[in-house]
């Protein structure tokens, strides 16, 4: 029994065609078997009770925050907001500054507004006669959720992006590859990298929120998971009116009313990122 070259090539070609066709047919069958049941998709349009949800979500065109520093008088006033965020979002404490993970934190006036302080030698003349109380005051800092965020433009995987619906600069930890371009792009130092596995360094674990894995970047996301359940951000809830959260696009919102009557400043506005966090510095006292 022998086979010549011609027969061999015919046979090989036929079996190649059959195997490719067979695989495709199998894939088809698999795909058909696993399509979603009809009508099942995520949408808020259907009516009825939601299992596991109580309040309607809070929505806005562009979320923003006003930090009224006159309401922060003692170190505990700051710490309450920071602790609430740390617990709710399972933020680790590595115990050293270089690995620090922070969503909301405090810093000095000169670090917060580097172009607007007496020691500034970079841009022309230093600013004179700044109130002592202001210089000594800790400032509460968080992601500015810029209207024109530079961090999202450099992300190679779209793991961070600005939500078109409400302007929140969102993080998708599933997609983050830990390249840290966003950290280099953010002029506010609002992003932290997990240099180590954060799990063992979380003091009180909140079982309702995920932790992060080693090698991803994280930051404040304006508590999107709480907004979806009709709750204000955790820091706002604990701030005793020191933090005001609302829609910057709605002229009747509380934040807009405050901003239209009181003078406010923003961090590094000259960079053109249009931060959505405003600071009221009137009427502050020494801490």
């Amino acid at each position, binding site marked *: 029994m022998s086979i010549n070259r011609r027969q061999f090539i015919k046979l090989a070609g036929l079996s190649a065609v059959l195997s490719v066709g067979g695989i495709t047919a199998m894939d088809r069958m698999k795909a058909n078997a696993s399509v979603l049941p009809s009508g099942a*998709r995520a949408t808020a349009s*259907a009516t009825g009770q939601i299992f596991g949800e109580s309040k309607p979500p809070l929505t806005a065109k562009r979320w923003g925050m006003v930090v009224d520093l006159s309401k922060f008088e003692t170190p505990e006033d700051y710490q309450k907001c920071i602790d609430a965020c740390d617990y709710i979002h399972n933020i680790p404490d590595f115990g050293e500054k270089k690995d620090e993970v922070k969503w909301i934190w405090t810093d000095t006036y000169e670090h917060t507004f580097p172009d607007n302080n007496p020691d500034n030698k970079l841009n022309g003349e230093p600013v004179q006669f700044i109130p002592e109380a202001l210089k000594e005051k800790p400032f509460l800092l968080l992601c500015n959720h810029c209207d024109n965020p530079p961090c999202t433009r450099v992300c190679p995987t779209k793991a961070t992006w600005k939500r078109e*619906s409400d302007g929140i600069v969102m993080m998708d930890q599933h997609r983050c590859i830990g390249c840290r371009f966003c950290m280099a792009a953010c002029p506010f130092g609002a992003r932290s990298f997990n240099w180590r596995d954060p799990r063992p360094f979380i003091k009180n674990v909140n079982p309702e*929120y*995920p932790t992060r894995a080693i090698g991803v970047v994280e930051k404040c996301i304006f508590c999107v998971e709480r907004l979806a359940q009709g709750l204000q951000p955790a820091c706002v809830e604990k701030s005793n009116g020191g933090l005001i959260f609302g829609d910057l696009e709605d002229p009747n919102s509380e934040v807009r009313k405050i901003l239209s009557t009181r003078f406010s400043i923003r961090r590094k506005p000259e960079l053109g990122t249009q931060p959505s966090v405003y600071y009221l510095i009137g009427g502050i006292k020494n801490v």
Partner: protein
Amino acid sequence: MYNGGKIILGLLVFLAFVTFPFWYNIGTADKIPKPVIESTYIKEHNIKKCVESKDYMRASHMELLDNWRNDAIRRGERVYVNSEGRRYLIDLQNTCLKCHSNKKEFCDRCHNYMAVKPYCWDCHLAPKETKS
């Protein structure tokens, strides 16, 4: 055929050697594990239905979870409407694992058997195990 006997004997030895693992392991295969669906929470609250039908969940839970993650995080839609029109909060830890509080018996059994290692648990916290 020269040395036919030796060749045939050699072939038989070769075949026996190659197929030895199959003969040796006959009957010792692990049983296909069945996930324990009843958890303490499900018993206590007398829950009869998952988000979708049992057959669908068994075959396609991974696709559902993948869609859920895209819906919640990327699309910002945190409410799932199932094929019967019931609404659920899209949340692995607070919707799925609230009922399925027995991750070891419910998730890990089959995943270990199939040697799949979903990386959900790198970040998402598994509930504290309670005996079902």
